[in-house]
């Protein structure tokens, strides 16, 4: 079972949660007050770079019958598509740049280079995923309706195919997202399942027509004799972007330590508990400036989920404060290398392909769904909980003792004793 009581799980009192929330509110206000010319320059520069890459790529592909030109064109186009998707499309549509009041860089008007219409995506992603983050049964991004990513979903024989489904999803990620968003849009629109001429379907068809037409008909046709190699280059660039987006997204919510929640927890949630859920439900991966750009700064998924509408270029500085807060409240700050985070997500995908009876950990203690019950289990009560409840501050260091310490001590006590 996933977390049903976030206060108990996080070892925080209501007053603690409120104090944490107030500090996060302050971080938001500080960033809002300091947004200015420096940030505007950043996003404009990224836009210029992306457009230059795209132009360069398209140009190079005119000579794509020659292998080096094909490689160069494909690489430039892949880079362009990745930046357009992550740092531009995703973040602009979150409203991160709406404060500039620039109609061309605005969540209302941005259309992205993907098969799904951005209007659909905003509904499914900005609204549903970011409001109901990791609430099992409410956040459809949990496995995107294809993968079983938590033990709270009952195992079905079809899940045995999960490793294959995962590869297919990765390769066709934009289509997975587009169909996923279409379902959400249709549901919100209230159109019947078989109704082909619904507004959502029409918008979807129009977008696909433009998108596919551009990459797979118009541009290849334009390069004349090089049409075949342009076609493969465009397909490759789309594939590269799909794989990359998939990896980045999967590292955001599926590595161990990114927690899931039940509907019951969500229903009684305060605004500050919402912050806490976003923090505990997300995972980061380490990144420098370049990796930040290429991942749309989703390497700072925790910061992004707490402040989805603050400009992405500010996440690194928010992260410094966020880490300090986590330390202060003894909360885990889930991060690691991209490689490690992805392997953890991959492990869950493969593990959950199997029936629960084959798995060792209980649902309450499993890395992909732990809950507050893990601390109530006999054997741990004494070690972790007793300490946490009786001594909320460490007598020696004066440091708060909370979730992170509890998780560590639990992990230690589970490790086999080494022989001397």
């Amino acid at each position: 079972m996933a977390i049903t009581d976030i206060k108990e799980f996080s070892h925080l009192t209501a007053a603690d949660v409120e104090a944490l929330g107030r500090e996060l509110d302050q971080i938001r206000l500080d960033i809002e007050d300091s947004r200015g010319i420096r940030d505007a320059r950043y996003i404009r520069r990224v836009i210029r770079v992306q457009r230059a890459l795209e132009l360069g790529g398209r140009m190079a592909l005119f000579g794509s019958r020659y292998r080096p030109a094909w490689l160069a064109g494909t690489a430039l186009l892949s880079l362009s598509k990745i930046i357009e998707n992550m740092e531009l499309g995703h973040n602009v549509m979150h409203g991160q740049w709406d404060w500039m009041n620039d109609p061309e860089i605005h969540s209302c008007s941005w259309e992205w280079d993907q098969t799904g219409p951005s209007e659909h995506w905003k509904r499914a992603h900005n609204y549903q995923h970011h409001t109901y983050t990791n609430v099992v049964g409410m956040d459809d991004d949990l496995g995107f309706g294809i993968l079983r990513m938590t033990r709270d979903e009952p195992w079905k024989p079809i899940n045995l195919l999960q490793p294959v489904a995962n590869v297919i999803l990765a390769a066709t990620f934009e289509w997975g997202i587009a169909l996923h968003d279409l379902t959400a849009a249709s549901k919100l629109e209230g159109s019947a399942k078989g109704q082909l001429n619904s507004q959502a379907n029409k918008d979807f068809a129009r977008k696909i027509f433009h998108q596919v037409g551009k990459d797979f008909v118009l541009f290849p046709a334009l390069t004349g004799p090089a049409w075949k190699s342009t076609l493969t280059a465009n397909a490759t660039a789309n594939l590269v972007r799909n794989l990359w987006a998939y990896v980045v997204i999967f590292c955001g919510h599926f590595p161990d330590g990114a927690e899931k929640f039940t509907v019951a927890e969500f229903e009684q949630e305060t605004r500050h508990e919402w912050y806490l859920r976003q923090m505990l439900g997300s995972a980061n991966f380490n990144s420098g400036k370049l990796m930040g750009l290429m991942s749309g700064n989703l390497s700072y998924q925790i910061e992004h989920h707490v402040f989805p509408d603050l400009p992405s270029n500010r996440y690194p500085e928010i992260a410094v404060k966020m880490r300090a807060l986590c330390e202060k409240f003894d909360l885990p700050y889930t991060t690691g290398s991209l490689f490690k985070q992805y392997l953890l997500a991959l492990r869950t995908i493969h593990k959950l392909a199997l029936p629960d009876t084959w798995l060792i950990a209980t649902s309450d203690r499993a890395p992909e769904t732990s809950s507050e019950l893990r601390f109530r289990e006999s054997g741990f009560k004494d070690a972790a909980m007793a300490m946490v409840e009786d001594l909320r501050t460490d007598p020696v260091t004066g440091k708060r003792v909370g979730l992170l310490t509890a998780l560590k001590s639990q992990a230690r006590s589970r490790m086999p004793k080494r022989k001397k």
Partner: protein
Amino acid sequence: MGLKDWIEAPAASVVPAARSKLNLLRGAAARLTTPLLPDDYLHLANPLWSARELRGRIVEVRPETQDSATIVIKPGWGFDFNYQPGQYIGIGLHVDGRWHWRSYSLTSPPNWENKKISIAVKAMPEGFLSSHLVGGAVPSGTIVRLATPSGNFALPDPPPEKILFITAGSGITPVMGMLRTMNRRGQLPDVMHIHSAPTESDVMFADELTALHAEHEDFVSKVQLTRRDGKFKLSSLDQVCPDWRERQTWACGPLPLLDEIEDVWKAEGIDDRLHMERFAVSRIDAEADGGTVTFEKSGKTITVDGATTLLEAGEKSGALMPFGCRMGICQTCVVPLVSGHAIDLRSGKQHVEGERIQTCISAAAGDCTLDA
């Protein structure tokens, strides 16, 4: 839809009036660059080549008085010079990373020849953008965004035979546009202009008014210097302009003056001859004190307090409102603020017209209109 229409479609929303081969080309290019428009590339090369929205380049900032200036702008591609004298134009200026929008009256006559327009701006202590423009912080060459000229405060063509203008302060600017137009067309009829300003040095376009007065015997310019002579009394109209009741009157200035004029004209039963422009002064200390909210597209109106979000207000009034998370994170409830002020309930920050606002976390600060 014919093939030509289909090709033009992506560019058609931009300048529907001016269909040209260029539009055809833009439309065709848009098919290739989807989801971006050719604009997204073109304006990187030259910011004036945008067809998606109107733009202009400031070519001159000319001081009028100590606290006012004329801004001459050369509009870019697609600007329609066929505006009516007296109308205003929306202008967007980039300051510290944000685009700020304000409306200013056009002072230039509609003119296809030198393809320039001008506005006159008076620095208001509470007007952030006006001080910025007048204070010399905006050099020539600066690119601005422009909105199509609009407004009902306009001079018909041909103008009526007898006109009375009553202006005060920067209220003279739209009237200046009218005067210049009539003068340019050589059709300046019987015009009486009464203008109020505190002192001589505060009179915008003073030399031009004097010159017009000297050149045209039918044009009478009366300037009231209020610090010396006191406020202009409407009761003195019978002496200053005995046939004022017969004239078509255009009035522009501070709200108390306009209210007074309106009362007098109504009492005389001649308010059908009165045209007024009310400038709403931008407030900086606005609070969420509620007001009457108009939802333009749905044609609904509702009066709400300062604690009601605009989303709730819309839903209560029966307007069709986009909605989402209701907590200010998902941006699906964003709509443009057409006029008036709104306040972000989370941060207390003020939104002014021309901004797109999140209705779920904003409340009305006075009367406002939403494009929803």
